[in-house]
């Protein structure tokens, strides 16, 4: 398929973090992947090793439910204008295997896994137990 030119006059992007991507130009293939554990801790003292590992949580092991290949479709695209014009873009953040691109992007296969839990001083957290 013939690709159009993307033209953006002004971009303001505040934060690009944790495997976020901002591309100006064309891309053939992108396979972003990110995994993260977000812990909110009562009485916030953090050590180097909090004893929290990806391997202990089933969220990082379970199989993603990828869609099966669909029926192939014969597609004919006609571009009646050769540019996609955007005047202004304002984004606060691009993060965790996300992509912000100006230009064509042929193929993307992305995966993100985020586990969030809280740990209380009295040890009453239930959701931070391994495999919860």
């Amino acid at each position, binding site marked *: *398929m013939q*690709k*159009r030119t*993307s033209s*953006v006059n002004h971009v303001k992007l505040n934060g690009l973090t944790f495997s*976020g991507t901002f591309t100006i130009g*064309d891309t053939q293939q992108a396979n*972003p992947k*990110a995994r993260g554990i977000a812990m909110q801790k009562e009485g916030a003292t953090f050590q180097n090793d909090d004893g929290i590992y990806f391997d202990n949580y089933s*969220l990082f092991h*379970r199989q*993603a439910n*990828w*869609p099966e290949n669909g*029926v*192939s*479709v*014969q*597609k*004919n*695209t*006609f571009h*009646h*204008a050769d540019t*996609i*014009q*955007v*005047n202004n*873009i*304002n*984004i*606060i*953040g*691009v*993060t*965790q295997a*996300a*992509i*912000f*691109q*100006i*230009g*064509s*992007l*042929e*193929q*993307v*296969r*992305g*995966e*993100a*896994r*985020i*586990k*969030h*839990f*809280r740990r209380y001083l009295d040890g009453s*957290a*239930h*959701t931070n137990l391994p495999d919860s």
Partner: protein
Amino acid sequence: MSSIMNMEVHNWGLHVENVDIGTVTASSVFLVGDNESFVLSSFFDTPPEAAALGAIVPLSG
């Protein structure tokens, strides 16, 4: 007989004045351009107490 679906797409002029986004996150894509295929997956787990439903502070009384 092969039954391949046929599709015809006409992209007429596209001119956008302004885009304002909070965050693009967890295997999401914001694209200004053309694309052939997207396959995106995301897992997110949060404790039940993080999802506060209804009024947290009593609004009266």
